[in-house]
């Protein structure tokens, strides 16, 4: 098979930093090529070079595309040649409909007048193709992240795509939707679309990829061909981090103590669709020192359950009781929930967890400013000491705590969010997708922190869409489906199959 794309000795330098150092990447016609590497390894930079975000001339090296030297000046230039990139951060207009978004900039128009009938029909066809059951007129705003991802792919398909680049496409997707998406990629491959997939989920990479290229610290480390011999996850991880990672989940002494938090008969209705009950009489408990997982598909109501528990931050007509150490507590406002001993680490750290423009220090102390002040006056020395303490304890990689949070990588940002909540001194932490979008090394560190918390006797309630993570970390797993807790499995009983069968049969 001939090469569709050949990137030769790409070097890209930013002031003071070599982001890419003679990177080579060869993508053959009609294959699925996985690009893996830790956050900050240079994957995104490489794709920006390819798509023309960094125009020809701003980097060294050559790009050969479709048999000719390609020098893209900007994104539209590369899109014209059929190179379409779908970014991790979706680029949809929330208040436009699906159809309008799919054909944005590529409108189905004659003499500037849009043919809506045709637009809707073509959108419907595309949506069927990507397996999204929504009307083309639905506003993107009303869709979850996973469905928005599918809209992005539909949008790419609406163009004459030859090389589809997916940057972390399944990061926000549930297990089932991820599977569907991967199937979709395989189907597109049959139709002749070449794809590059950037992913942290190695089981997915193994499932779809024909070739895997590993990048570390701005250099190509290895390229593995799945057709010559099967690729193991261990081999990829070794190349990614430059060391063997025998245990993906650190060991932990499992010892559950007294019941720390008990939620009974929790009911929540949708804030906009008044007649839709999102959480149906959920009851659960978390013991001291226990890590409890909540498994479920996207839309099962896991985040909604967590946020409604945490100061009724989501939903309306919330009812039910929460007890901490047997005492009923008031969690009707966020500050009361914090005072009662709860903390909620959001799945969406950038828009709900952090103030990106502020420093690490100011983010860490935000949920417990009383702890660094007296009489309402802040003690900046104490603030610096506290944030320095967490910087060291959490191993937040930054020159100083006065760095703005926006300058940190995803893993380090997540550690800042965790620091913030640990400093608030909670009894029970609700972690919503705590390792989403962060690299293998940082994940391992986050797992270590979770274990440390449980060793201290805190209760941890962990929501995750990655089943291996739940199975690797949790003592007990609740299975959630359509707003109800449909099953409960101990670590010994739990397996991916059992969780899925609970979801499917209930």
């Amino acid at each position, binding site marked *: 098979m001939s090469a569709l794309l050949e990137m030769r000795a790409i070097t890209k330098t*930013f*002031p*003071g*930093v070599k*982001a890419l150092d003679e990177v080579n990447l060869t993508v053959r016609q009609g294959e699925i090529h996985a690009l893996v590497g830790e*956050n*900050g*390894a240079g994957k995104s*930079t490489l794709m920006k070079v390819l798509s023309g975000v960094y125009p020809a001339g701003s980097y060294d090296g050559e790009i050969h595309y479709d048999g000719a030297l390609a020098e893209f000046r900007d994104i539209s230039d590369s899109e014209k040649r059929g190179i379409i990139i779908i970014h991790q951060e979706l680029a949809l207009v929330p208040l436009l409909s699906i159809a309008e978004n799919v054909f944005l900039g590529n409108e189905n128009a004659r003499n500037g007048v849009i043919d809506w009938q045709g637009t809707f029909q073509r959108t419907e066809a595309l949506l069927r193709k990507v397996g999204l059951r929504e009307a083309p007129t639905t506003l993107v705003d009303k869709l979850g992240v996973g469905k928005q991802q599918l809209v992005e792919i539909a949008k790419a398909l609406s163009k004459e795509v030859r090389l589809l680049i997916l940057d972390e496409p399944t990061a926000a997707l549930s297990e089932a939707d991820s599977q569907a998406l991967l199937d979709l990629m395989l189907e597109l491959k049959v139709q002749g679309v070449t794809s590059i997939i950037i992913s942290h989920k190695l089981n997915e990479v193994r499932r779809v990829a024909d070739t895997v290229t590993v990048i570390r*610290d701005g250099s190509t480390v290895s390229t593995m061909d799945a057709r010559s011999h099967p690729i193991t996850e261990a081999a990829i991880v070794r190349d990614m981090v430059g060391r063997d990672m025998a245990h993906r989940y650190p060991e932990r002494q499992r010892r559950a103590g007294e019941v720390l938090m008990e939620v009974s008969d929790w009911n929540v209705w949708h804030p906009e669709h008044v007649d839709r009950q999102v959480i149906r009489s959920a009851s659960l408990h978390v013991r001291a020192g226990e890590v409890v997982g909540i498994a479920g598909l996207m839309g099962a109501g896991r985040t909604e359950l967590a946020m409604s528990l*945490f*100061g009724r*931050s989501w939903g309306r007509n919330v009812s039910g009781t929460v007890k901490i150490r047997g005492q009923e507590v008031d969690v009707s*406002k*966020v*500050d009361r*929930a*914090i005072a009662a001993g709860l903390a*909620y680490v*959001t799945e969406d750290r950038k*828009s*709900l*967890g*952090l*103030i*990106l*423009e*502020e420093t690490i220090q*100011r983010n860490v102390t*935000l*949920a417990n*400013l*009383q702890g660094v*002040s007296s009489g*309402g*006056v*802040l003690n*900046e*020395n104490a603030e*610096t000491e506290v944030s*320095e303490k967490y910087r060291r304890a959490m191993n937040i*990689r*930054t*020159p*100083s705590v*006065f*760095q703005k949070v926006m*300058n*940190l*990588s*995803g893993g*380090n940002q997540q550690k800042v969010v965790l620091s*913030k909540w640990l400093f*608030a001194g909670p009894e029970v932490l609700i972690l919503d997708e705590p390792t989403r979008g962060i690299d293998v090394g940082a994940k391992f560190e986050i797992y270590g922190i979770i274990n440390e918390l449980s060793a201290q006797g805190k209760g941890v309630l962990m929501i995750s869409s990655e089943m291996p993570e739940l199975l690797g970390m949790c003592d007990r797993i609740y299975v959630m489906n359509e707003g109800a807790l449909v099953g409960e499995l101990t670590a010994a009983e739990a397996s991916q199959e059992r969780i899925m069968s609970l979801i499917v049969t209930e």
Partner: protein
Amino acid sequence: MALAEQTGGETATKSVGDYLLSHLREYGLLFALIAIMVFFQIVTGGTLLRPVNITNLLLQNSYIIIMALGMLIVIVSGNIDLSVGSVMGFIGALAAVLIVNMGLPWLLTILICLVVGGLIGAAQGYWVAYWKIPSFIVTLAGMLVFRGLSLWLLEGQSVGPFPREFQTIANGFVPDIFPAAIGQALAPVFDARQVNVLALITGIVAAAIIVWGGMRKRARNKAYGVVDEPRSFFIARNVIIGAALIFIMYKLSTFRGLPNVLITMGVLTIIYAFLTERTVTGRRIYALGGNQKAAKLSGIKTERLTFLAFVNMGILAAAAGLVFAARLNTATPKAGFSLELDVIAAVFIGGASMSGGVGKIVGAVVGAFLMGVLNNGMSIMGIGIDYQQMIKGLVLLAAVIFDVYNKSKQG
């Protein structure tokens, strides 16, 4: 992302030039103010810094600065208040009606006016905070309503004059507490007819406090290893600020001493700088403006904080209204017309961000003075109001472009 970490690491060891580049905004504002003052001092043949003109400059800009303090908080919290000019005019009118027409004591009137200002802020803040109606719209409505109310209250007439005690809010001076003999003894030294010793000493003490505070902060930062301002910069900055302060106070001392308004402004500026930079409430306001959702999920009562920001703005607009009316010694239906734009411009020139979460009290005050010196200097030069407006507009645009450019270079 590793890239960002590494460039961050580089800033730890930076040269003087790099430092200046990364803090261009803060120094730029100060230098711009000094440069403009020097420029006008030369082209007006020394009129700008004559004691009487400095006094004038302070009086003319006092109400803008008082409102800029509140506006900074409103803008940092992620909102805007377009009604302050009208509210200021309305409170002036209210004061005139209460004192002149109804004969109420002036102290009681001041109290009533401040309470009414707070209520006006509360009325607007309520819709913004609890109903999530954009502040632009609520306060635009307020602007029209209170302009109309002033007209109605004054029945289209000017009302005045005010009693002498009320006038001293704006036009009074702090009496020299030191024996007159000292002043007379000093007068020949400065080649002046008289010297107000209190003003002179206030200047020296204020400069000393600023330098001392700066040194303490620097020592503290050093203890935590976060010193990034080169020593030469630290010294130069403090010498310039200290010298300027003493110079201005010396000039004032050779005229009538410290204007009451200057004390009011100074005290309010210190209070609000402390509130925004050192208190829990202040920090929460920045968090609210920086990311409202994250702030709310961190247990901050975002609605109440927004509400209080508007109440505070209302009270300060009322205070400004009292100063304005006292200065003119009359309340007119036109008072405060389009003044909200000057206040907002001062805050943005001072470095605040339209999207909230960024901005400093000192910046807003310097921004207001910058506009004030421009106004005053151009008026002395006899430049027409037409050119004045254009120049002020371009200065605002330039300041914000500078901000955006700076940010994109750093980002």
